């Protein structure tokens, strides 16, 4: 593991064995996050962003399972003897283990896409914030309550003290997402995973929540894995961005670099699909040409080749592209940038297959 990284995912593979067949939800993801960095993950819906996030906390819903790869996490709160750091492979932990539980919410916290359903309807919001605090910190109930109120204030819930004993249905969507952020921050995690935290909200509320998250990130300095399908949002909040397609990261670079010099044809399509980038935060992706293949039938070779405008018959449909580092900050997974790219294999069978798929 790189000496600086907080988290390094290598060749992570997650699948769901279903009756209809096996869904390869994550098919070899590589990612690295440095402490304090905001890494955006962008991709069309269904490309495995959520499952990647769930893998970190080992909360993949059944029947999903990790088939391979490592998720190395630099844990700073685990070793009993003071501040020693140690590196844990989350992919190998037992999801029900004590160690995993102590990481959840404490070192890695998560915010979900649906603020309306991420709180239990029959428990007060306050009690659910206190829960995280009581689980990970040696505080009395009273102290935990005060801490919870403090965090409710911090995330901008008006009348925090009184709203502690309110139930989720008495909160608006935006307020619930603020409360969710309060839960996530309450134990001062070193990594915050935010899975489309603003997608379910109104445009004006989206902007407020983004603002809040940016401000809190600067104040607390935690690393953030920010998942979205909206490149416009990424431009506002992230330092780095990873573009995902069908369970793989196809390009990773600093945000400016990606916006100015996109390399992967998929990234280029994504950028074209965002009108007036950076000005319209709430704008959704306009779908790019072609549709995402069924997750049950991953295309051979490069998974993007059936939709790709630069597809090379005989190469893209047979050869699996490698992860290529163009320079220190920019990597891409596309045959166009492979130094030893294979030459087209123009056997008749491959050409025919390519033309029917294209």
């Amino acid at each position, binding site marked *: 593991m790189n000496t600086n990284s907080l988290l390094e995912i290598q060749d992570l593979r997650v699948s769901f064995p279903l009756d209809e067949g096996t869904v390869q939800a994550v098919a070899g993801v590589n990612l690295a996050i440095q402490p304090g960095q905001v890494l955006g993950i962008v991709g069309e819906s269904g490309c495995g962003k959520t499952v990647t996030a769930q893998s970190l906390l080992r909360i993949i819903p059944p029947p999903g399972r990790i088939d391979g790869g490592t998720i190395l996490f630099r844990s700073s709160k685990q070793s009993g003897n003071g501040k020693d750091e140690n590196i844990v492979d989350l992919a190998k932990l037992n999801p029900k283990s004590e160690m995993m539980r102590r990481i959840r*919410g404490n070192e890695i*916290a998560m915010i979900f896409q649906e603020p309306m359903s*991420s709180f*239990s*309807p029959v428990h007060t919001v306050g009690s659910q914030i206190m829960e*995280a605090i009581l*689980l990970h910190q040696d505080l009395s109930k009273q102290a935990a309550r005060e801490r919870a109120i403090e965090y409710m204030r911090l995330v901008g819930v008006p009348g925090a003290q009184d709203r502690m004993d309110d139930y989720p249905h008495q909160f608006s969507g935006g307020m619930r997402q603020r409360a*969710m952020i309060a839960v996530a921050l309450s134990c001062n995690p070193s990594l915050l995973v935010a899975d489309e935290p603003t997608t379910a909200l109104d445009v004006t509320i989206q902007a407020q929540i983004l603002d809040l998250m940016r401000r809190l990130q600067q104040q607390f300095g935690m690393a953030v894995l920010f998942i979205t399908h909206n490149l416009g949002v990424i431009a506002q909040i992230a330092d780095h961005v990873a573009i995902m397609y069908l369970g793989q990261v196809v390009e990773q670079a600093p945000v400016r670099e990606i916006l100015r010099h996109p390399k992967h044809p998929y990234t280029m399509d994504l950028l074209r699909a965002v009108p007036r980038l950076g000005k319209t935060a709430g704008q959704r992706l306009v779908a790019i040409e072609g549709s995402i293949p069924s997750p049950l039938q991953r295309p051979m070779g490069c998974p993007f080749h059936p939709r790709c405008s630069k597809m090379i018959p005989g190469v893209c449909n047979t050869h699996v592209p490698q992860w290529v580092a163009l320079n220190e900050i920019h990597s891409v997974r596309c045959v166009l940038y492979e130094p030893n790219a294979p030459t087209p294999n123009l056997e008749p069978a491959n050409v025919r297959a390519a033309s029917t798929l294209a």
Partner: protein
Amino acid sequence: MARFLLQRFVIMLVMLAGLSIIVFITIELPPGDFADRQAYRMKSTGVRVTEADILQMRHQMGLDRPWYERYLSWIGNIVLRGNFGISLSQHIPVTEVIGERIGFTALLAFATLIFTYGVAIPIGIFSAMRQYSFGDYFFTFLGYIGMAVPSFLLALLLLYVSVFVFNSNVGGLFSPQYVEAPWSWDKFVDLLNHLWVPALVLGLAGTAFEIRTMRATMLDEKNKLYVTAARARGMPEGRLLLKYPVRVALNPIVSTIGWNLTAIIAGAPLVAFVLALPDTGPLFLNALLDQDVYLSGAMLLLYSTLTIVGTFMSDILLALLDPRVRYGERT
């Protein structure tokens, strides 16, 4: 909460009033009245009865007054004086006839409810947590049998088995030596020893149903996002299940207490008859056969009241469990 309680309480009173009218109409419905029946009985023993005699009897018993007058004096006596009238067939106050028996009926209903929920909730949780395990299939199978077998048949079966296999009789509510004995701890234990049989018989169908409900809701709830969110906060699995899905799954269970109670009370007379229980069941059947309007009316009214009050209590429980009910939100 206070508003909610008041609202439910008023609804309960209105329902009780409406119900008393329905009860009154129901007991008046069959053709002929008690006077006819009395005359018929006297005739069959060889006594000569004329039309005038029947009218005379009717007048004596007040059966010739208009129905609303009879209703008002009937319900007025009940509400104001606790006087349910005189049993036409036994010539003693209805309250005396019913007496201790209604207490047994209430006790039986209560015991059945305890049995139903005490068994159904843990099994439902188990079945949901170990979905498709041997245990799950086992309880599912038992549950279908429980729902399919008529209760009187089950009662007969239990009686048969207890008499011929265990050589003891589980009929009645007490062993012979305690029937006339004053209340004591031993008598209470003896009562419990007998009570489980009718409770099992009466509660089996409801229990099977509640197991299915509990299991289905648990399965639904345990994959909800809020459970995952709590897991992602670091909640240990066991505590997680008890605090969230179980808690939410109790709502539909609690909200069926009312109609479970209805089913129990409706089924009780038949089972009590088969098992020879000293509760109101056999009395009720005879009162209906005799057209003893005051007795059967009083009992219908008491049964309905038990049911309505039970529903009221289940509403309160539900409100305690679920804030959305408490705050009157409809979702």
